[in-house]
């Protein structure tokens, strides 16, 4: 926890209203904090949305981020995750000429599979911890991925 630039995951529950996302991203940019990834979606059957922000900084910086987020009027709650389940999804496009059964097998190890087959390309989907997604992307490099999209992380405290 003493690492000055450690990776942190923060979840923010906000009123789902106009410009609330700008309030949050402005706070990060205005105070010089980083956003590594950000996901946002409405919470079912409520007036709130949930954001998951992956950022980095020292304990003091994260404490400030948490407090400053909480200070925003439409913010209901801020969780600084310590013990969480964290997942991220990735979609990867491969040429159809690559070894598809190899690709599919690797995907399975990362909770995924080939989800779409086109004339020239296939699209594979995996979903796992962000660090494992890194590993996966490294492992499939030799199959010449043409395009990669990552969703950003979502997290729930255990």
């Amino acid at each position: 926890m003493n690492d000055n630039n450690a990776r942190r995951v923060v979840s923010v529950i906000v009123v789902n209203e106009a410009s609330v996302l700008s309030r949050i991203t402005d706070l990060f940019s205005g105070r010089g904090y980083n956003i590594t990834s950000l996901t946002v979606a409405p919470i079912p059957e409520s007036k709130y949305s949930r954001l998951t922000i992956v950022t980095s900084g020292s304990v003091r910086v994260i404490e400030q981020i948490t407090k400053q987020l909480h200070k925003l009027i439409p913010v209901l709650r801020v969780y600084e995750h310590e013990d969480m389940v964290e997942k991220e999804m990735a979609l990867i496009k491969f040429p159809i000429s690559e070894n598809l059964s190899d690709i599919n097998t690797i995907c399975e190890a990362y909770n995924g599979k080939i989800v779409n087959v086109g004339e020239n390309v296939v699209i594979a989907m995996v979903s796992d911890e962000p660090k494992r997604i890194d590993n996966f992307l490294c492992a499939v490099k030799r199959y010449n991925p043409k395009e990669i999209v990552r969703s950003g992380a979502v997290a729930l405290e255990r």
Partner: protein
Amino acid sequence: MQISGAQMVIEALIAEGVDTVFGYPGGAIMNVYDAIYKQDKFRHILTRHEQAAVHAAEGYAKVSAKVGVAMITSGPGFTNAVTGLADAYMDSIPLVVISGQVPMSLIGTDAFQEIDAVGISRSCTKHNYLVTDAADLPRILKEAFYIARSGRPGPVHVDIPKDVTAQIAEYNYDIKLDLETYKPHTKGNPRQIKKAMQAIANSKRPVFYLGGGIINSNAADEVRELVHKTGIPAVETFMARGTLVHDDALLIGMLGMHGSYAANMAMSETDMVIALGARFDDRVTGKLSEFAKNATVIHVDIDPASISKLVNANFPIVGDIKNVVNDMLAQSSVIDAQNYEQWRETIINFNELHPLTYYEDSERLKPQWVIQRVGELLGDDANISTDVGQHQMWTAQFYPFSRPRQFISSGGLGTMGFGFPAAIGVKAAAPEKTSINFTGDGSILMNCQELMTAVEKKLPVINIILNNNFLGMVRQWQTLFYDKRHSETDLSVQPNFVKLAEAFGGIGYRVTTKEEFDAALQDAIKKDVVAFIEVKVERFENVMPMVPSGGSLFNMMLLEKKESK
């Protein structure tokens, strides 16, 4: 009741008890100004610049302890007001600023006088709103006033498109606010307070570090009582001036970059800092790692984000200062004032070693003398505002403040041009007191058009221009840190300040001696009209003592000792 959005604004202002609105009309806000024309419940003060309208509302809010209100139009009207919003945000001043916006159908089309106002104000307001339906206006205005004055106060901006002010909708202000996500924490944790009081009792060299939050919380009486009951010496920040009476034996002085030697030394030697509504600003702490290095820190603040932001607090207490200090008073018997006798003597010695003073060793008047003299003549009977620069620091150092809300100055943002319009707002809120604005020859030109407002509305502010023909504070830094290269700070070319005041229908004086100054001040008070008193002061006087930027508080540049006159 079915009324227009514009009428709703008027009704809401009346319901909030607003008696004065500062503003400037324009295209997008015309519907509201038409409704202002038709009402007689509050007065509107037309400033001559939107920035001045917001500063006047700030001055009004500071002195009256109410929410200040300013009204402006879209586009340039709004952008002119941004400096005022930022100023109020930095100094936690409660404001509701209402701006007009182009009609909804034109938003996003680069229409005439269109600007993304809420986009700009987001980072310099406590909260802001773009109203898209008149039916929302009563709730939004009620929330705006509540958010502005509650918790850590601040400016709230409400942007209303022109068609929304024309739209007819149901108006009902008698609604209960339901702000599930905004609940300021006003009551301090009793267990934490108890522990903190015990820690104070165990300390040997405690210091109260009093901040502007005390004034916002209207807690000066309680703080005075706590200081006297415990016998613990206190330093004040710039924003807290007037919390203790200037001659209180337990008031060490102001701390920080231009704080007194004794205050800064006490802060460096203390083993227990009791911060009340202060935020450890860089102009206060100097080099952070050396600030109160050996001290335990108790930090009371209503804003949790201010606690442990810069200096780690051993006892963080989130709450309204007034509540927490009352709780501390209830337990003050654990503290024995006798224990700090030696510590108090040490501080007296600090003060005797390097008292806050100046020398009258020049042909020209010293600016510090002028400020002290006004203090002797008017003291408690004046409200004092300032602009920004050397004169501002000298005012904080040498004016004998005796009550909270007596000193109105731009602390956090350091806005030149703040003083005169703020003093107009001060005079509007407290007409029975003399309203003095100490200013410099640089600052006064940044909002001198407000002479017209003061003349028209008969708000006789007395501006004392301490004229050294320099942008003095920058000149001081250039002298000290840039090898005397006085880049673009020589203001030898100046207007005739006397004629300038007279051109607007005010009154002007130029003085060079003590006798002339006394006569001018007395005449200005008697004439009861807005005045410029230009005082020719020593050009190269420096604000001393000084902690160079980023230096440690105990490493001060001190006034060279000379024979005092």
